[in-house]
């Protein structure tokens, strides 16, 4: 066995043994780490929720133009689509045929009894063009242009209600942004407190073993060898913290999810599945932050014991 590998294994073993030998301190440190990581995860989830819901809400502001089945032939619709697309504010358009509308309808989360009578042969769903503009404010221009020329061909309830929706949507968006900011600030505040506690508890675990450090020093252990086991311990706190945090967040999301399903219907996912969907990113950041924090705090805390 190479001596580097052997040294690493010894360091790892010492760190691991210390980790288990001081079970209660370890658990305390891991739980504080969990608190820190939970706060950070909550900020992260909030950021994603607000970003995705803002996107979702904004995409709802985009307008859909429905066509009467009786008065408009398909050729006219494609022509109209081309005309809309040439307008400068329009980003994309999408033509929804009757068949496509039927598939979408059958995918909706509504009562099956309502869906059943609607079939290919009995399809009252209108054809439509979805218009996406670069800026939601530009929609009114597009709408005005359309209604002026082709009002007889268009089912225009949506066009009328658009203005009212917009105000509601903007209020919702600003509320979401406020929740996000307040949530992130609070999380960072509690996260900071938790970080100080992690710092303190790791200092305590190190102070509890100052005798061992002293012995290691005067038998000639190099500083890096002394530091090693503590860094391993710090990393293990981060890993354990990540594990607890993930469990905690999944459990919370699972419990809370049914109660706030209305808000999350915007994202077409409930909270639990939304968090599940973010899980890889969450675990990634928890591990990075937990491991770095644990290792860094250990390095900082042990420094005073290593001065020559």
């Amino acid at each position, binding site marked *: 066995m190479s001596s580097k590998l052997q040294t690493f294994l010894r360091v790892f073993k010492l760190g691991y043994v210390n980790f288990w*030998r001081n079970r209660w301190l370890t658990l305390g440190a891991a739980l504080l780490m969990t608190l820190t990581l939970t706060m950070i995860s909550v900020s992260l989830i909030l950021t994603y929720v607000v970003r995705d819901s803002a996107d979702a809400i904004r995409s709802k502001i985009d307008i859909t133009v429905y066509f009467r089945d009786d008065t408009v032939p398909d050729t006219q619709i494609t022509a109209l689509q081309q005309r809309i697309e040439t307008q400068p504010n329009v980003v994309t358009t999408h033509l929804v045929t009757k068949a496509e509308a039927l598939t979408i309808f059958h995918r909706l989360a509504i009562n099956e009894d309502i869906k059943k009578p609607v079939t290919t042969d009995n399809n009252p769903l209108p054809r439509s063009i979805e218009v996406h503009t670069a800026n939601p404010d530009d929609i009114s221009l597009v709408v005005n242009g359309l209604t002026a020329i082709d009002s007889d061909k268009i089912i225009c309830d949506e066009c009328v209600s658009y203005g009212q929706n917009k105000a509601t949507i903007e209020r919702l968006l600003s509320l979401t942004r406020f929740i996000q900011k307040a949530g992130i600030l609070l999380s960072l505040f509690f996260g900071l407190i938790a970080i100080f506690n992690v710092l303190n508890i790791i200092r305590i675990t190190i102070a509890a073993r100052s005798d061992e450090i002293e*012995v290691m020093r005067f*038998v*000639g252990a190099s500083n890096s*060898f002394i530091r090693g086991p503590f860094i391993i311990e710090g990393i293990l706190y981060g890993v354990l913290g990540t594990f607890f945090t993930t469990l905690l967040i999944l459990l919370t999301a699972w419990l809370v999810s049914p109660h706030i399903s209305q808000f999350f219907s915007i994202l077409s996912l409930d909270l639990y599945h939304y968090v599940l969907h973010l899980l890889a990113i969450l675990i990634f950041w928890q591990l990075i932050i937990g491991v770095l924090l644990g290792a860094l705090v250990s390095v900082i805390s042990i420094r005073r014991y290593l001065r*020559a």
Partner: protein
Amino acid sequence: MNDVLRIGDTTPKTAPIAPNTEAPPLIEFQHVSVEYPNRVAVKDINVKIQEGEFVSIVGQSGVGKTTLIKLLSKQEAPTKGSVFVAGRNLADLRDREVPFYRRKIGVVFQDFKLLPQKTVWENVAFALEVCGYSQAEVARRTEKVLDLVNLGRRQKNYPHELSGGERQRTAIARALVHSPNILIADEPTGNLDPINTWEIIELLYRINQRGTTVILATHNRQVVDRTQKRVILMKSGRIVSDQHGGKYVI
């Protein structure tokens, strides 16, 4: 510096090495002072110690014996003057060289400083493990040095199961396991009864006879009077006498 592995040396030297006063000293204190803002620990110390010597540093508590020892193990730095070991000024040692320097000096304390959750064997082997020796080398050296201090049969015991003398012998074994050139003992018998005290002093003699320079700090008059070796007497941070075959006279 003589790097021969003395512990592995199975043939004891026929006679104690006569300190050679012609050779450059192994340890030299040049006008060393350690002064704190409101206290002087040691003042203008000038001492030369040859390789193979057995030197007792005596004096009452707080006269600066421990400071001298801390200077030697580079736990403290002089505020004035220089400490040379094997011709090297300790002030020139870089931080990362200090651990390697410490492997060349063994230190034994009054309170043993054994790790309570480790057995005798583990306490000694630990000193080698932290320095990156191979497992085979750790086993070989630990066994030899435990034989030397006559603790082979107690190797599986924990420190709290040992007598004071056995604990100190474990500590000495740990100090010797790197085959140091210098063994420093700071009040090694301070916590021991007279019988155990003699056991430890005898052991230090034997180690000295194998060629290791031994520095013994003590305030035990009987120990010093019996050694018949070089005695450095300290008072209020200064050396007041330095004689070979000396006695503890205040």
